[in-house]
């Protein structure tokens, strides 16, 4: 207890800032299973389902019609705003539909999708390659990245070009390539670095040139030995530096990684770019390289298929839009021990509602759950205020207190206690001896808070309109009163009364008209 207090006080007192590491748990990594084999190409499924909401931001607008034949790399949906993203056909084929809606696991909201029937020929559109990307202007690089529809592949899916533009406008000085893949089961970045370290490093150089950062660090966890070796042999002569951090969860979170690499703390409800750092995922760096030097849009990504019900868990190079069930069949699914599937790792993953859901640009991992590895939720016991959750929280929050307020739906208190700084890592729920599903409470509270913020904004808008209405009515009444005073003779009065009478007559006539019309209608 005392030690934990001292740990907490250290940063406050201003010393030991770098040495103290709060909030780190070490769950079993479960990565070796899927890293046994190399990244495998995926045999094409019959059809691909491409959501128009691959990313964070506005949905893309389809630019093909049902029945169109498309080639690989051809654009099938376009960005309609700054925060939207282009979408390209991952293979050649025919468009089957453009408006099928599917409910994805994370948002519970239906998303419009384009369905593409693959013809198997994989005919590609001719793309222009660039031999020497180092000679290109940064604006040109950004444009290439934007056209290729690259978004953050670590999971958040923020359009990369937009992120880099924000970075330029904030004069960032450091680019961090995030390869600290800390969540259990996910190994796609490690596999990528092991086999394609060169691509990631070149991609990092491109991004560095595109966002005008002075330096670039690639952050990796110390237990990814093969990946580190591969990087070391490729990194000589490049501007990218290697930064090795201790393996823990959630070391790969943006704020954690910025703190580990620079010692700078991201302000509450701020972003790393506010303190001069842009963080980009390693997979995104590889996608940027493809976009710039090969001219290929973002049409595939590496996805980890993991979990003990799979006979051969592995990493696949998956065309966007491939159904999860197709990949799981390729790995040999043991239906008997299969208890359900998670999209994402074991700590932050969301249950998959339907195995025909497709892979998106942001999907990094699909875990098939078995009863041994994912025991059913044990009965929830009351919170005993042991404080383990507070020690585990990397955002320095008080999860036990947030739980109480979540149950009370005390929105204001949740805000005061920093719920929006919760990164939804699930470390608190992992250590909780009472097995309270803390993370679910926070997710649902965050949603409630967003809804209520919308309602409050709406009512203050109505209030403004009502106040204007009152002001207008007052002004009109005043004007009327003044008008009456100035017109001393009663001619106006008469006219007004006359017009009011007239209005009454008109109304009566109109009512009669409508009635006769109605009766006529009924008669006919």
């Amino acid at each position, binding site marked *: 207890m005392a030690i934990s207090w001292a740990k907490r006080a250290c940063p406050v007192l201003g010393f030991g800032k770098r040495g103290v590491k709060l909030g780190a748990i070490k769950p079993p990594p479960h990565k070796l299973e899927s890293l046994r084999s190399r990244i495998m190409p995926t045999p094409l499924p019959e059809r691909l389902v491409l959501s128009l909401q691959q990313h964070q931001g506005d949905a893309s607008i389809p630019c093909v019609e049902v029945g169109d034949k498309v080639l690989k790399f051809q654009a099938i949906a376009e960005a309609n705003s700054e925060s939207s993203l282009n979408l390209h056909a991952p293979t050649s084929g025919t468009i089957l539909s453009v408006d099928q809606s599917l409910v994805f696991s994370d948002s519970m909201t239906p998303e419009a999708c384009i369905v593409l029937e693959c013809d198997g020929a994989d005919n590609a559109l001719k793309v222009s390659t660039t031999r020497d990307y180092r000679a290109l202007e940064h604006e040109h690089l950004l444009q290439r990245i934007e056209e290729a529809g690259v978004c953050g592949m670590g999971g958040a899916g923020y359009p990369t070009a937009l992120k880099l533009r924000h970075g330029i406008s904030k004069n960032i000085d450091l680019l961090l390539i995030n390869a600290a893949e800390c969540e259990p089961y996910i190994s796609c970045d490690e596999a990528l670095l092991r086999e394609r370290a060169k691509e990631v490093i070149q991609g990092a150089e491109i991004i560095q040139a595109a966002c005008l950062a002075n330096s670039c660090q690639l952050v990796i966890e110390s237990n990814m030995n093969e990946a580190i070796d591969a990087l070391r042999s490729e990194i000589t002569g490049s501007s990218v530096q290697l930064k090795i951090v201790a393996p823990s969860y959630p070391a790969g979170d943006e704020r954690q990684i910025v703190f580990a690499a620079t010692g700078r703390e991201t302000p509450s409800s701020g972003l790393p770019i506010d303190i001069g750092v842009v963080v980009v995922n390693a997979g995104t760096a590889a996608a940027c390289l493809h976009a710039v030097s090969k001219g290929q849009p973002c049409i595939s990504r590496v996805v980890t298929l993991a979990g003990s019900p799979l006979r051969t868990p592995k990493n696949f190079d998956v065309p966007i839009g491939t159904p999860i069930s197709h990949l799981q069949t390729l790995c040999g699914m043991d239906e008997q021990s299969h208890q359900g599937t998670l999209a994402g790792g074991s700590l932050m993953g969301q249950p998959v509602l339907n195995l025909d859901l497709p892979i998106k640009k942001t999907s990094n991992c699909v875990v098939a759950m078995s009863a041994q590895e994912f025991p059913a939720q044990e009965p929830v016991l009351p919170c005993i205020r042991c404080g383990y959750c507070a020690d585990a929280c990397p955002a320095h929050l008080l999860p036990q207190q947030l739980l109480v307020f979540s149950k009370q739906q005390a929105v204001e208190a949740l805000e005061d206690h920093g719920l929006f700084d919760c990164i939804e890592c699930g470390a608190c729920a992992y250590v909780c001896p009472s097995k309270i599903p803390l993370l679910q409470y926070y997710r649902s509270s965050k949603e409630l808070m967003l809804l209520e913020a*919308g309602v409050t904004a709406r009512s203050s808008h109505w209030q403004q*309109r009502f106040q204007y209405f009152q002001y207008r009515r007052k002004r009109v009444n005043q004007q009327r009163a003044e008008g009456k005073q100035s017109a001393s003779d009663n001619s106006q009065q008469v006219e007004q009364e006359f017009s009011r009478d007239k209005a009454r007559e008109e109304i009566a006539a109109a009512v009669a008209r409508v009635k006769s019309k109605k009766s006529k209608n009924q008669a006919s």
Partner: protein
Amino acid sequence: MNPFIENPIFLYATGLLVALLLLLGFLRFISLLRTQRTYQHSIVDLINAELPQTQCGHCSYAGCLPYARAIAQGEAINKCAPGGTQTIRRLSWLLNEQREPLDPAHGSLSPATVAVIREEECIGCTKCIQACPVDAISGATKLMHTVIAAECTGCDLCVDPCPVDCIDMIEVQQPPRQWPSPGPNELVPC
């Protein structure tokens, strides 16, 4: 008298301590001034901000502000049907009062509505425009009127004044992005 108290060192020390405390108090006062967020509003404003501002009068007051004034004087907080449980919860949090279910005498919890004018029947009498507290109706004398659905609060104040009863209240379709996702007790993976 106690010689200890008369000791000048003790006096100095006490004086120093008092000065220090005063300084600390002053600093705290300054920091309070700087972080002041909600204190500048009156309680009526704070209550009014939690009310839905449809001005419907279901609470038996002439609008939201009068009800907010009444609440500040001790009126019950469970009389606003359009605000529903959310408003009651937020008011109870604000005023540290017991949360109670909505008073059934003032309406029931019902989905949000908007007014829609059956335009072919409208005779253009402008009565509804005069009744609408948020100027959500557009039209002119003897011309067809219509409701700007995005601005309509669903207060149904325009329904009664209409001489030909051509205004309907229709339920708002929630956009899918506002469907709530399952809470902690409803999650079942497939």
